[in-house]
């Protein structure tokens, strides 16, 4: 872990904290919510050993990167802009891309709007769905799952931050990372008044890990990460030009069978019966990992490294 270098890169008007190690073809790892570069700690070390240069930033709004105040500064265009600027400052033309959760959404869109910068993609947990021109993204979630659905509860600036503040950050982190609950996360305000103690930490998530996350999020707050959700409808408006366009990058998709996203009604059929392939014609492999939840790169680091390496070495 000490071998991992930490630098600050100036890109697209922000200072971005980047963790990197190794030399060779570049693999860019994109974390999700509420996560950090640290999510990829195992992969950073393994890929350096495998002869790659592994790079994992704290995305805009997270950790040691800048957090612009307005949620309007967190559209897909802003984040992809940060990453293109990052690649330009490193002098890298094309990367291997790995995304998880919100990082997967960003990765899909990077492939959509700058496919020339991506050699191949391994994406995890969140499939690509084309925009519905008739319904805004958050409105669709509200219609499907109600106003207590976490995405809806995240909308009002300050609101969910207040709820989070009622809970000890370490307890919150533990709850986020280790839950294997597959039900759509609905979190009415009442949930925060009494949050049961989470079970003992699983083997793959140590006390040290909890402290790392708790420290960073206590320092930074959750607002930066929440702003991605608050910019979803705006991103919807701005991505109208890409209606009907397929993602034309070679892709491998991995999810855990205990990931709540995998249990959203219609998802299994969409992934396995051709829906995803229709929009991602170069989707080459789909992997569903048994007994694995949402944070798969931390739960099963070696298997995930093998899956990613097995795919990228074809190129």
């Amino acid at each position, binding site marked *: 872990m000490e071998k991992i270098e930490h630098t600050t890169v100036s890109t*697209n008007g922000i200072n971005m904290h980047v963790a990197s190690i190794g030399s060779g073809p570049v693999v860019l790892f994109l974390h999700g919510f509420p996560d950090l570069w640290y999510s990829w700690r195992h992969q950073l070390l393994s890929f350096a050993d495998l002869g790659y240069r592994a790079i994992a930033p704290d995305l805009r709004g997270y950790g040691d990167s800048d957090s612009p105040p307005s949620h309007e500064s967190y*559209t897909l*265009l*802003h984040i*992809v*802009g*940060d990453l*293109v*600027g990052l690649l*330009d400052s490193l002098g890298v033309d094309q990367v291997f891309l790995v995304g998880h959760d919100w990082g997967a959404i960003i990765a899909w869109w*990077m492939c959509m*709007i*700058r496919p*020339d910068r991506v050699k191949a993609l391994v994406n995890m947990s969140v499939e690509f769905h084309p925009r519905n*021109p008739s319904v805004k993204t958050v409105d669709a979630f509200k219609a499907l799952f109600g106003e207590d659905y976490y995405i809806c509860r995240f909308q009002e600036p300050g609101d969910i931050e207040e709820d989070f503040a009622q809970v000890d950050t370490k307890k919150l982190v533990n709850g986020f990372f280790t839950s294997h609950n597959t039900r759509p996360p609905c979190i009415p305000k009442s949930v925060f008044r009494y949050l049961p103690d989470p079970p003992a930490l699983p083997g793959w998530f140590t006390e040290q890990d909890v402290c790392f996350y708790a420290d960073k999020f206590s320092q930074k707050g959750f607002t930066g990460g929440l702003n991605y959700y608050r910019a979803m409808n705006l991103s919807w*408006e*701005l*991505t*109208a*030009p*890409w*209606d*009907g*366009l397929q993602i034309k990058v070679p892709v491998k998709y991995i999810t855990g069978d205990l990931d709540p996203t995998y249990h959203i009604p219609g998802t299994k059929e969409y992934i396995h019966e051709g829906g995803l392939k229709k929009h991602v014609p170069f989707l080459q492999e789909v992997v569903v990992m048994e007994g694995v939840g949402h944070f798969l790169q931390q739960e099963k680091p070696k298997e995930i490294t093998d899956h990613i390496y097995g795919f990228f070495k074809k190129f």
Partner: protein
Amino acid sequence: MFLCTHLNPLFSRFLHFLLKQPDQANKPTTSNMSGLDGVEHKTLKVNGINMHVAELPGSGSGGEPIILFIHGFPELWYTWRHQMTALSSLGYRTIAPDLRGYGDTDAPEKMEDYTYFNIVGDLVALIDAVTGGDEAVFVVGHDWGAMIAWQLCMYRPEKVKALVNMSVLFSPRSPDRVPIPTLRRFFGDDYYICRFQKPGEIELEFKKLGTEKVLKEFLTYKTPGPLYLPKGKLFKSSENGGASSALPPWLTQEDLDYYVTKYDNKGFTGPINYYRNIDRNWELTAPWTGAKIRVPVKFIVGDQDLTYNSPGAKEYINGGGFKKDVPLLDETVVLKGVGHFLHEESPEEINQHIHSFFQKFL
């Protein structure tokens, strides 16, 4: 006067066939209000707005190549009347919308709804509606329409077979320089783009002058230099070339009346909102810093155009910068003695240039 708009498409096509004159391509139309026989006017629902689209079918028997014309400021679909007539008699299906905010197309209330992404979203939906979804079209752009066309090529190159762009050069994004403050520093607060920034302000001043005067001043501006609009002295300064009361030969009173009617009805806010999103566009186009245009392009500009005479423009064209950013740039044409509204000033030449370029891709 609005005869064409009331005819059903089949009958208007028949009328067009009866009234078609072979040499119509060589003289500017001087006829009625909507200007053109056989033009079909439709309203299409695209990207959440109702878009007015003028269309002239090609003279062939179907399957004609489509040209999408994108107008600028302060114009309308009507600016393309000479091109539509000439090119559809050459067999193209010509399509010219009123862009969002203009003419008979919706003008959303929110200023932020006029970014590149909104407009290109409208046009992609329009292209899909007229082609059935799978085909590319020819595109012709002028002024703001040229800026939109560059972005269309950047986001959806596979939708554009080839582009003839006019007046406004491609401008690669500079990651460190925010546009409006830069323009302010360089040209001052009276520079027209700076004067357009504050919501509502210039509209009030335009209202005082009256729509006809404002449009006439813009449409006849032929000073090969930057446009300044000092408060209280709009268009009166000699720097702007003064305002002569006579119309130029290429703009009839009828033409002007058409523009005035539409702008009186709609106002200037929609069109000026494009300028109010310049910095926002800069912010949102970060992903395309350094990206090139990957579509075959022919660029045409008049040597009296204020754009051609702006600092750096000639060097960008002649020094290789333009070709570097637009590797499939086929040709840059500079028309002598021609100003900003080149396709209205010199329609036959422009029509020739368009056809001779697009022909290569048929």
